[in-house]
């Protein structure tokens, strides 16, 4: 049966690119903030480009923060991408302290020295996570200046600048990726396919 991906539309970011990527993989895609439509989806994707406080405010404004927490508590699969990954954290230090969704333990902090992490970098899978294992060593596209500081048990992959940076986090069926698999060409799309199938078949 054709699976449906719900791209959570909270008014911030690159929903069009994300939706096209999943459609190219053969999934039915719904870009929406309506609960009744999201309820028909097999898995949620939380995209995002921009600043954490504005994004979190938008999720709260539309009632999506509580909705996503409830759905995650009921075992629904959720993938956060880039800023969407950071929103899964407990809090962020971007432009002050802002509470996040609290779905994965951790804090979002600036990269040391006001640095950027822009461009293609390889990922190194941690702990043999089965969903990401086929993507170990592939290069993917990063574009961020804040990082998700997570405990080792939540970290499923890292990337290296002058030290390891958390590139992926997971807690059960909630997964966050710091990079943009939707813009990482064949490697990114293969990863998305493995993630969706793996999370839904688990």
């Amino acid at each position, binding site marked *: 049966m054709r699976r449906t991906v719900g791209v959570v539309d909270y008014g911030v970011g690159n929903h*069009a690119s994300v939706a096209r990527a999943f459609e*190219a993989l053969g999934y039915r895609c719904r870009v929406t903030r309506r609960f009744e439509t999201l309820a028909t989806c097999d898995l949620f994707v939380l995209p995002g480009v*921009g600043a954490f406080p504005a994004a979190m405010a938008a999720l709260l404004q539309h009632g999506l923060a509580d909705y996503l927490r409830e759905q995650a508590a009921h075992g629904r699969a959720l993938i956060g991408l880039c800023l969407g990954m950071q929103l899964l954290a407990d809090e962020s230090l971007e432009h002050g302290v802002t509470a996040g969704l609290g779905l994965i333990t951790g804090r979002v902090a600036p990269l040391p020295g006001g640095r950027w992490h822009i461009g293609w970098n390889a990922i190194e899978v941690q702990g043999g996570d089965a969903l990401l294992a086929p993507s170990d060593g592939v290069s993917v596209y990063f*574009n961020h*200046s804040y990082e998700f500081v997570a405990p080792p048990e939540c970290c499923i992959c890292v990337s290296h600048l002058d030290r390891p940076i958390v590139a992926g986090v997971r807690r059960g069926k909630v997964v966050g990726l710091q990079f943009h698999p939707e813009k990482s060409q064949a490697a990114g799309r293969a990863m998305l*396919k493995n993630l969706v199938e793996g999370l839904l078949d688990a």
Partner: protein
Amino acid sequence: MLKKRLIGVVTVRQGLAVQSFGYRRYLPLGRPEVLVENLDRWGADEILLQCIDRSSSGLGPDFALLQRLATLGLATPLIYSGGIRSTADGVEAVRLGADRVAVDALLHADPRQVEGLARELGAQAVIGHMPVGVEAGALVWRDWLRGEGRTLGCKADFGGWLPWVSEVMLTDWAHEGSPAGFDESIPDLFPYSDIPLILFGGLSEPAQLRRVLQRPSVVAAAVGNFLSYREHAVQSFKREMDGIPMRPPGFAGLGLAP
């Protein structure tokens, strides 16, 4: 390890992709969508779409073109440049599918808007695009709309926007479109070594690309129609980048049917 990037550039004027020669003479090439799709398929590291007449004509960004590109489902990061007048313009460009925006005229016209863009999108999504040339051994920044140049010496010459961009793109505008015409003194004359640079304009030869990419501050080289003259030129260029940390040549190859 973070890789250096090869960016494919598509230059658009009056809605058509063009071959530009120093931004003075143009040859029409066809629909921009076709060139962008090729670069996506050939595995460019990023694609820069620069619509060069949108600011001078007061038309604003070409959102219609971005919408058409969105239907292609690009798998390569897209940078949009052209006609961005405000924070809202940049946010809309990202909503329509751009991953980053590059601003040029706005740097002169209203640098405060660049801060707004960075606050909304994050500075990692904002590139400062500077058409430059070398005159009397100094770097001169071209203001297209006013038709004048400004010699760059210290940060004050930039106008206060530098903290709000993640990378600066230096375009050798006079040699753009000239094979191997890029003036390699440009990155050396740029006054700050801690600002990541993208270079563009007359970069056409692998040996030249390798030389400029060896500079620590140069994170990317942008190449225009030299990539479009022959199929798979992206892979050909990359194969000759020995010693440069670069994503290996490959094809986007999205044949991932469910």
